[in-house]
């Protein structure tokens, strides 16, 4: 038998995923900032009843359009509702939609895209046409059309937001799959006799995960923005229940009475959206197998 006892000096030091994650965090102060912001907002949404000083729906004609004070840290709106409490409860809707909708859209869209890209044929043509059709509408317009057809309510809003994002994921997943399918390692796995579903799960999906995950983090921001826009237009979360979007809408009518709802909600949206975008950038670098060596 062959014996080739030779030095293998070219083998480079290995780095675990954990080390990569740590390096990414330490290398970027912005990541720490983003992580803190997002975790804080998730905590706020989870513990809203404990944190909110007032009932977000309770009106009080004694303190209408109040300035910030010791009792009302961010003042009150035109119905005398506590702005801080409404922002805290509003974060629940915004964070739930913001995180769930991109996940659902990513699962559905990636499945469609991978299957279409890998197998081609009629199914691929159908999916591609559908993507083209849906992408022809701006996502807000699309969301408006669908929610006008479906009506409001929590589940419908979630459906609207998810559907609006599916074509984007499907397109990215399909394009990446077409590229990965050409890679020799996919042919190699056919040659060893691996079944097609396993080829897709083991060799295709992990190698298209990077763009999909990046897209997902970027669209968390879009989902929060879109929910806000829908609520602003009266198609999202229904008053009197708060979401960051309808807080801004209500605030706009009363901007001269009290600017605090707009300032507070606008600040919260900006902060969260910015943080998710930062995470998206970092995740992209982290998932690239060639970076971080």
């Amino acid at each position, binding site marked *: *038998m*062959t*014996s*080739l*006892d*030779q030095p*293998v000096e*070219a*083998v*480079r*030091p*290995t780095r675990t995923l954990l080390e990569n994650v740590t390096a990414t965090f330490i290398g970027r102060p912005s990541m720490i900032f983003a992580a803190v912001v997002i975790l804080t907002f998730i905590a706020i949404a989870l513990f809203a009843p404990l944190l909110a000083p007032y009932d977000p729906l309770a009106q009080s004609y004694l303190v209408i359009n109040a300035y910030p004070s010791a009792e009302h840290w961010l003042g009150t709106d035109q119905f005398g509702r506590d702005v801080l409490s409404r922002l805290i409860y509003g974060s629940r809707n915004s964070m739930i939609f913001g995180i769930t909708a991109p996940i659902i859209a990513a699962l559905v869209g990636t499945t469609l895209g991978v299957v279409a890209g890998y197998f081609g044929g009629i199914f691929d043509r159908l999916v591609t046409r559908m993507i083209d059709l849906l992408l022809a509408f701006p996502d807000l317009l699309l969301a408006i059309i669908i929610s006008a057809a479906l009506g409001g309510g929590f589940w419908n809003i979630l459906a609207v937001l998810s559907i609006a994002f599916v074509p984007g994921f499907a397109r990215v997943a399909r394009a990446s799959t077409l590229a990965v399918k050409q*890679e*020799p*390692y996919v*042919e*190699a*796995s*056919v*040659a*060893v*006799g*691996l*079944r097609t579903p396993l080829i897709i799960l*083991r*060799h295709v999906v*992990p*190698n298209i995960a990077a763009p999909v995950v990046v897209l997902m983090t970027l669209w968390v921001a879009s989902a929060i923005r879109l929910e806000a826009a829908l609520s602003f237009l009266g198609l999202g979360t229904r008053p009197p229940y708060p979401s960051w979007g309808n807080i801004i809408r209500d605030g706009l009518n009363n901007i001269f009475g009290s600017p605090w709802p707009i300032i507070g909600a606008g600040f919260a949206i900006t902060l969260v959206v910015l943080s998710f975008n930062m995470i998206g950038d970092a995740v992209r670098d982290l998932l690239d*197998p*060639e970076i971080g*060596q």
Partner: protein
Amino acid sequence: MTELLRADNLVKAFGSEGGFHIGARKQPVRAVNGVSFSVTTGETLAVVGESGCGKSTLGRLLLRLIEPTEGQVHIGGVDVTQMSAAELRAARRQMQMVFQDPYGSLSPRRTVAEIIAEPLEVFGIVKTRQERRERVAELLEQVGLPPTLMDRHPRQFSGGQRQRIGIARAIALNPDFIVADEPVSALDVSVQAQIVNLLQDLQEAKGFSYFFIAHDLAVVRHIADRVMVMYLGRIVEIGPKRSIYTAPQHPYTQALLSAAPEPDVKKRTKRIILSGDVPSPSNVPPGCSFHTRCPLAQEQCRQVRPELREVAPGQTAACHFAEPNPIKLPVSAPAYAS
């Protein structure tokens, strides 16, 4: 010597699939056009030719990684082209492949152990994690890599080491037949010899047959038992190594042998220089497809395609003028004297 593999009249046409086409229908490209040959047990058949000659497509047809347009491939007497998907998967245990690109052919996110163990898992050969690691360690040793590296990722290895990993995967199932698609052409010169020797040692130990695809005739001389020369999708010459190298019959084989520059200063005086380029496979010349570049071409060659005929024991060539006394092509004079 028993016959292990037989290919009969294999044809692969690209671009002939159905569907809507706007504008003129493109002529299908016959990348492989009526190729028949056989490989015996333990033998290495090398196929050489320039880009576009169909050698890579042919290798994939043999393993049915792509579907043939016409023709059959028998391995161990069973027709691979007629197998159902399940039968084909089962048959993959006997036929494996080593790829040209040591970078692209290993999945970047999987460890070496996962890559090498994949065929073993597919066929249920290893059951437990312990068994799997033992078998992978054994295979890594056989290809000259330390088993301690099995949990690393491919990107941590050099090109030659990656090629060893690819070879370990191919031999994991003890196949009868391995298609090696230019396994050394992407490697550094000083590493090529290691891989060529490894492939030979493994063959001696395990007795499988190689279908060795190459463009480097010198490498082929070392590894092949028989050599097949292809030009534009067809076999132009096939025969035992010794006769191909010492008495090539087809003018193309002669030109190919003479064109390869050798690291030897004394060799640079004599060389056959073919004129022109390899024609596009989508526009193959009529008659003998080599006639546009052949210094011997006659009217007959433009009209009639020469069939492969035996010119010496075991050696066949597709040339009207091939005969036991090899024809001599004009050789260019050196452009300058050194």
